[in-house]
């Protein structure tokens, strides 16, 4: 595995070169410093670090939710640093599938609608949205829950709905932020098994966590400390 790569016929999904993000002070905070990171297609990566290490900032940068103050970030070979906000929003919806610790499911909307939401802004025709949402729910083993209200589901099921929502748009990168933080141990295993399965199906997965047990399931681990990234032993 390499941390950087150039000029390959199929560019890496993520390619960060010298990326930093500082917040204006006082005092000025360098949340992420000089990060070089490449994630190849089909890779299962975990980013570990204690809280305050710059983990969240890195996640926001990877997910196009924030812009680096310096350095270059290419997503699927496209330099996204200079794009307009509207274009970045579009890319985000198209290429990134988010999984959050807090699930962020809409209450009062069915499981199916929640999954379909991530295609809403991509102009996927309605009929196709329904079909693809059903397929994605089947993929995460929740075909029997399509018409349920998220409020009636268990935590593990909710997170699987969120994962289906992240998958349904066929993103280049599944970006999970402490996906097991709100789950009990049984559900943690179920979600991690699902990530393993998705990995074997060829999905590129990046999991950000402070939990070594969770990160140990990934094929590659990087550690972030004080905003600086380093490869870690698996």
């Amino acid at each position: 595995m390499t941390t950087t790569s150039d000029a390959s016929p199929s560019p890496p999904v993520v390619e960060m070169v010298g990326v930093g993000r500082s917040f204006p002070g006082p005092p000025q905070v360098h949340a992420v410093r000089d990060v070089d990171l490449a994630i190849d297609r089909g890779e299962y990566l975990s980013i570990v670090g204690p809280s305050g290490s710059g983990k969240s900032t890195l996640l926001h940068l990877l997910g196009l939710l924030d812009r680096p103050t310096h350095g270059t970030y290419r997503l699927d070979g496209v330099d996204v640093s200079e794009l307009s906000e509207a274009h970045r929003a579009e890319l985000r919806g198209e290429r990134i599938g988010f999984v959050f610790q807090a699930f962020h499911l809409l209450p009062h909307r069915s499981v199916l609608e929640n999954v379909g939401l991530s295609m809403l802004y991509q102009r996927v025709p309605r009929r196709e949205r329904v079909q693809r949402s059903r397929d994605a729910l089947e993929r995460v083993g929740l075909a029997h829950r399509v018409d349920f209200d998220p409020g009636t589901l268990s935590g593990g099921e909710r997170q699987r709905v969120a994962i289906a929502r992240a998958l349904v748009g066929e993103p280049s990168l599944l970006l999970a932020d402490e996906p097991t933080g709100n789950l009990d141990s049984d559900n943690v295993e179920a979600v991690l098994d699902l990530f393993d399965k998705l990995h074997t199906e060829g999905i590129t997965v990046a999991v950000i966590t402070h939990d070594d047990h969770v990160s140990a399931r990934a094929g590659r681990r990087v550690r972030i400390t004080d905003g600086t990234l380093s490869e870690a032993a698996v």
Partner: protein
Amino acid sequence: MKMRRRLTLRDLVDEALSGVAARPSRLALTTLGTVIGVAALVSTIGLGQTASGQISDRFDATSATRVVVEAGERDSPDGAVQATELPWDAADRVARLSGVASAGTFARVAVGGANVRGVPINDPSGSIDHDIPVTAVTEGLFDAVNGVLSTGRFFDSGHDERGNAVVVLGRYAAERLGINRVDAQPSIFIGDRPFTVVGILDTVSHRSELLDSAILPMGTAESLYGLQAPAAVEIRTELGAAQLIGSQAALAVAPNSPELLSVEVPPRPGSLRDDVSTDINALFLALGGLALLVGGLGIANITLLSVMERISEIGLRRSVGASSKHIAGQFIVESVVIGFLGGLIGAAAGVLATVGVSVVQDWTPLLDYRLAVLAPFLGAAIGLLAGTYPAWRASTIEPITALRTN
């Protein structure tokens, strides 16, 4: 930058409707202000239209066709006329005018203190004497005041010319005299003079004093009691002709001194309706507008609250590709939907209120249907105005901030 892929309008409306429908009790509270405002507006305009419609109806039906020419009466209240006497044929002169449906003269008759009684007995105690006023009219007057008989007939111009001793009793006069049928040709006595009762007058539209009195032909009153001149000419005009007849009647009756006659014409119906409408509308439109303002502020307030509550939803939508415009659009459409619903319910309530008040008042409800159609859109416009600021606030929320709230 132009979005290559946009949210379709249908999707946007669907999302907004789901957002609105998710909190029904809050929806009810949010729409309340608009409901009250629009209802107040619709019902006040509706009631204004209804009321002025009733007023003009009444004038059109009766008063708007009534013209009265009078003389002398104000000079001496007891009925004796002096300088400005009406001629005996005043009614005929007026009837020649185009637009007059019928005309007749009227006078009160001084019978020299004689009492009216139903039986020819001289009763010193006076217990059978009645203090019934005596009036005199020409045949045409019955028609001019829309007279209706309960029994018998009116006297005619023949009785008038011959000075026959016949009488038509007003309804209340007949009751007091105990006369309720005329087929046996009952007589009454004015002083010692007998008169044959030919009919009983049941209703009139004007000059209701006729119902209390014994009514003689004008010629009879002249020959028996020395009546000097009629006191008034009652004219019923064709619809819409009252103003014209009013301007011509005095000249027709007294060509030499028209200025000495007083002519009473109904107010111009249009001006009356306008007066009523502007008074009502100015007041109630102000109230309705105030209610709408409050309603709009209510929507703005609650939409703003809703934005703050749904920060994580905003963050999620941004993370699945919604631009800040999409977010603003959704909240705008939500508040437009809320305003539209409020306008719809308010319009229905306003129409109901108009109809309800009309039923209680026995009015014919009048409402411009365009108002009912327009009201929901007025509500939507208020929603649009009210939603602009909260939607802008929602669009400026950073997705990072939004997703941090766990």
